[in-house]
């Protein structure tokens, strides 16, 4: 029983990180029809920005975090939109997909060549010291992962539905032409989405890197899982990405524990294929805006 609880709770903690990456992914998709194959690298890079801040500029950890966040929003948010998405999107979705794949290679190799090919330790934001929870070890880090991602969903949903900017962003995402007529600055709204995505990716990076370590190749796993979470949960719903992330995190751990470790990597993939074929709008998704 304690084993089951352990696996369940750890799965939720891991899944909440997947969810953060998946939410940003879904947002960018809605706002700019951009499928970002470099999303995993977007979670890898901010950790290195922080390490550069501390190692190269000698910043204290908290300042380096702020530096990492700002630099991520600049590079992975603003520059990504301006230099890659804007010029390539008119050439079509598949072209953009391929460009983001090339971007993934670029980010990985740049980090590897300019920083290090080896994994790097990363200071913890919160203690990883375990607490006993009915026989399962749970750390403050785990709990905070969950709380942070839940709060993000709540805050983002409130922001998108209750504030003027949020509603403008939604309008810009759903019908850019009409939004433009209504006086919404569509370009700016789309830019906000990219900035939010970069911020969420940074947050995910700061939360997991202490445990997963900073390594140039980390994005490969996280990126794929984030896509799967977004698709399984429902591309056009923020809470769908959350559900998808948690579901994948838990199912992955349960499979590895009780079914097969050899094929644990297969489960999310099979789930993905099934969802795409049976319910392409995702578990939580609604079918509108999902015409393929």
């Amino acid at each position, binding site marked *: 029983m304690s084993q089951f609880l352990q696996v369940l709770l750890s*799965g939720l903690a891991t899944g909440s990180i997947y969810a953060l990456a998946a939410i940003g992914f879904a947002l960018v998709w809605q706002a700019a029809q951009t499928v970002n194959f470099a999303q995993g690298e977007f979670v890898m890079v901010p950790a290195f920005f922080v390490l550069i801040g501390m190692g190269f500029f000698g910043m204290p950890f908290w300042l380096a975090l702020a530096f990492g966040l700002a630099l991520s929003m600049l590079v992975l948010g603003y520059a990504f939109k301006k230099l890659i998405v804007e010029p390539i999107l008119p050439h079509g979705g598949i072209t953009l997909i391929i460009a983001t794949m090339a971007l993934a290679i670029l980010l990985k190799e740049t980090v590897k060549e300019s920083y290090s090919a080896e994994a790097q330790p990363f200071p913890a934001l919160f203690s990883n010291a375990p607490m006993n929870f009915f026989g399962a070890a749970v750390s403050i880090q785990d709990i905070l992962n969950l709380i942070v991602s839940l709060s993000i969903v709540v805050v983002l949903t409130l922001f998108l539905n209750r504030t003027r900017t949020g509603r403008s962003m939604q309008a810009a995402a759903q019908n850019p032409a009409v939004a433009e007529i209504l006086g919404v600055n569509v370009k700016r709204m789309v830019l906000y989405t990219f900035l939010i995505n970069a911020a969420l990716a940074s947050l995910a990076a700061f939360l997991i890197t202490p445990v997963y370590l900073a390594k140039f190749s980390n994005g490969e796993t996280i990126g794929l899982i984030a896509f799967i979470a977004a698709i399984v949960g429902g591309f056009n719903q923020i809470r769908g990405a959350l559900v998808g992330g948690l579901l994948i995190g838990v199912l992955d751990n349960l499979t590895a524990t009780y079914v097969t470790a050899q094929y644990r990597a297969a489960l999310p993939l099979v789930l993905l294929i099934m969802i795409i074929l049976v319910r392409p709008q995702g578990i939580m998704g609604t079918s509108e805006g999902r015409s393929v």
Partner: protein
Amino acid sequence: MKKSLAAITAVLLAAGSAYAQDTVKLGMVAELSGAGAPAGTNWRDGVKIAVEEINAAGGILKKKVEVTDYDTQTDPQVSRAMVQKAIDAGAFAILGTVYSGSTLVNMLVAQQNSTPQFVGSEAPTVVQKGNPFVYRTSSGAQKGIPALTPYFKDTLKAKKVGVAWVNNEFGKGGRNVFVEEMKKAGIEVIADVASEQAQTDYASDVAKLKQANPEAVFVYMNQEESARFLIEAKKQALPMPLIGEVTLTEAKVIELAGGAAEGAIAHVGVTATATDVPGIGAFAKKFEETFKRKPTHDAIKGYVGAWATKYVADMVGKLDGEAFSKKILGLCLKAADHPKILLDTCWDKTGEMSRPSFMVQVKNGAPVVIGTVPAN
């Protein structure tokens, strides 16, 4: 026109080789990019230091040593091409590769060209294919892991053990040898936990081991996987000793795992922490001065590979792959006579290596030698 081009090329090449008379070329083929880059770059840097030293000591057969780097991109097929390229360029010997998956592919090429090849790979199969030109620079898993058996059997007196391994050709090889060894020693393996390469979440792996509750766990993974495993093991307070082969107590793993590595034990073929051994201490110091980081196991392997090339070639007295092979198979080098080989080292008739090794434990954040294991 093509023909004349070929002719010109031939003339140029002939000129090149005439010029090359007074140098010995070595092909350093390793994983400089891709997933294997950490291992490959350390291997390369170990080779670099060795080659500088060899040249300072007069080179091989009094000729200057020239080493060229070839990047396999951690891709077996590219590695095959790179070994071919190195041999085409006139390399007398190949140093590399580290990843067994690559070595198994590219060693065919070196064999076809009778080119001696020192590899950093530890998968058992590398020396089981009857290839007389491939030589290890550390003991293979089928040598290293049996050296651990007495530790499980006599020191820990374990009856039930677990094994956690990374499911690639490296981990699988180690795991198979371990399970076989335990069977022979009459120890039951009650938990057999496979994990993926580059896996990040080890919660279920550790939970399974905790549930099975063996008396000790053998951990056989690559560096950062080992670190992540240790972090999770500490979190879930896995109570039994964690014992590894080589990787588990490496400086990098300790750095990454932080306090979580405390108490981990490993059998290490040759370790930079064994600074009591004069050659190792000197190498570690020089490496740290040159590259501003601690040498890893792979760096020492590259270093030993390059020096072994020199020692054996000097003994043979000419640059002849066939003669080199005849000489080294079954050869023992004493550290007293050949200090840069670091420890008394023997190669058997398959190219497998044996030499004394160490048991190491992480204490106060640093690996400490807790015992030596004689060559087996």
